[in-house]
């Protein structure tokens, strides 16, 4: 990854805030047997982001089972987490552009105002 965990989170935090979300950082998410610490989370909108990096030890926490359980909740539109694997981030610009598109889709489907 061209960015560190902290730099990537700063980019995402700024995008989500511009979209009107009240993002809290490093929030413990504990619902229906899923317990993880999210990099960014707006509990009221139930929208957040997670940058999965080896640097932060995320791979031990976000196991394939945990990710599958979270995706099941997203399929049911109970919450939305922008999941970013560090191996897929070549630059801050790419990350920012993708986050903007994600938030636009949420707006299109009425999840965000």
């Amino acid at each position, binding site marked *: 990854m061209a960015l560190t965990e902290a730099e990537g989170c700063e980019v995402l935090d700024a995008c989500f805030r511009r979209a009107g979300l009240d993002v809290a950082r490093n929030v413990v998410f504990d619902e229906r047997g899923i317990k993880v610490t999210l990099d960014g989370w707006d509990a009221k909108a139930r929208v957040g982001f997670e940058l999965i990096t080896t640097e932060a030890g995320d791979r031990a926490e976000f196991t394939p089972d945990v990710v599958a359980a979270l995706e099941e909740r*997203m399929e049911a539109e109970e919450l939305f987490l922008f999941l970013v694997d560090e191996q897929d981030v070549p630059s801050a610009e790419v990350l920012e552009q993708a986050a903007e598109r994600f938030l636009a889709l949420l707006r299109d489907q009425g999840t965000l105002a």
Partner: protein
Amino acid sequence: MSRTYHTQDFVYAGSNQRTALRQQLAVAEHYRTLHHKRRAEIERSYAEATGELARAILPGFTLEILQRAAALTGYQRPIAEDALGAMERERASLKQRIAQIEADPRFAQRELLRHPSTGSLTRGLREIEEMIAPMKDVLERCQHVRLGRLIESGYGTPEYGTAFWRLSYYRDWEAADDILERFADKQVFSEVRDEYLRAFQAYGPLDAERARISAEIAAGEALEREHQARSQALATLAARWLEQVRRATVTFLFECPPGALGSRLSKDAEVELLFKRAAGLYHKIKYLDAIVQYQVDAFVFDAKKALAKIDKDLTKYRRAKHVHTRFPAAMFERRFRDRSATYQKRWQRFEKTYTRVYAFDRWDRAHLDNDLLWWNVMTDGRVAGDFIAEVHEFHRARPGYVYTRKRSDRDAYEREEAEEMADAAHTLEDPVDGLLDPS
């Protein structure tokens, strides 16, 4: 009170000395240039002389000639190792391989197969390249770092399963848009995907066929080249063998002690004289190099050192703090004495030695025995040549040796020398007298 010199005297005399040294360096440089030119000319003569010697010993390549050459020179190897037989074996091998190539359909039908416009392989290759071209174009336009992933994940089809909350979804989207932009006639990526897959599937077998035909053409062309090379080798076979044996024979003669050659070569006066000429020219080059090194190069080295010193001193004594320095007369006058006569004498000595060796062409004066020293022959033993390693070694190995002069009368020697030098002056592009003129 003894006389002293002032700094302005030093600067004046030093400047004059510098000018004189530079003039002498120009003279030395002139001699060097002339020597390079003359050396090249002697090298050409030497090459001609060895060629003539070789041709005189071996006018052809027959058993009779080889036997006569062996008896004359003592060089037995071409007979002992059956050079003629080896040449015939090479001839047979070349002919066999040429026949093999000529029987090979890849060579025999070369026009049918590889004619630039009508050859079947040439045409086949052209057709395949024409067929491949549009597919290659599609494949090249689809080039993208994420193309493999887009195809595998089924991007643009219902099979694509990456959810929109994953970053890779957006990166796939961006990559697909990039590729789609290169196809003006396509609306969605799935159309590009279909065309890509069609091109990809058809390209593989066609490309393999193209590689097969190309390899067949290359193999045929290699056979043609081999046929040409071997035919050339066959055409030049006798000449090559003759040249090889001539070279080996001349090398042998040059490595032989003159004493061992004397009685053999005396049986053929022409060959003997040709050998003396070649050997003499070889030594002439060596001696002239040594003379220039000893009398010119060494001077240049010393003169440059002296120039550097005078430059340094001139810089020093031009400074204001040295304005009151005084130089004792003895030291000053010794350092800045007029050396023009010394220089003149040095160059005259150089020219005399150099020209004596350069102009020498009386090869018949050398006697092929173990006391043959070309330096003595060329100078009639009248010039000390111990600065040449070969001459030094000759005298070291023969303490008390005295060369018997061929011309005991010094006047006769000098008269003859003058005549030879005058002859050389007339036959040379740069007259010998020109040595004195550095302009």
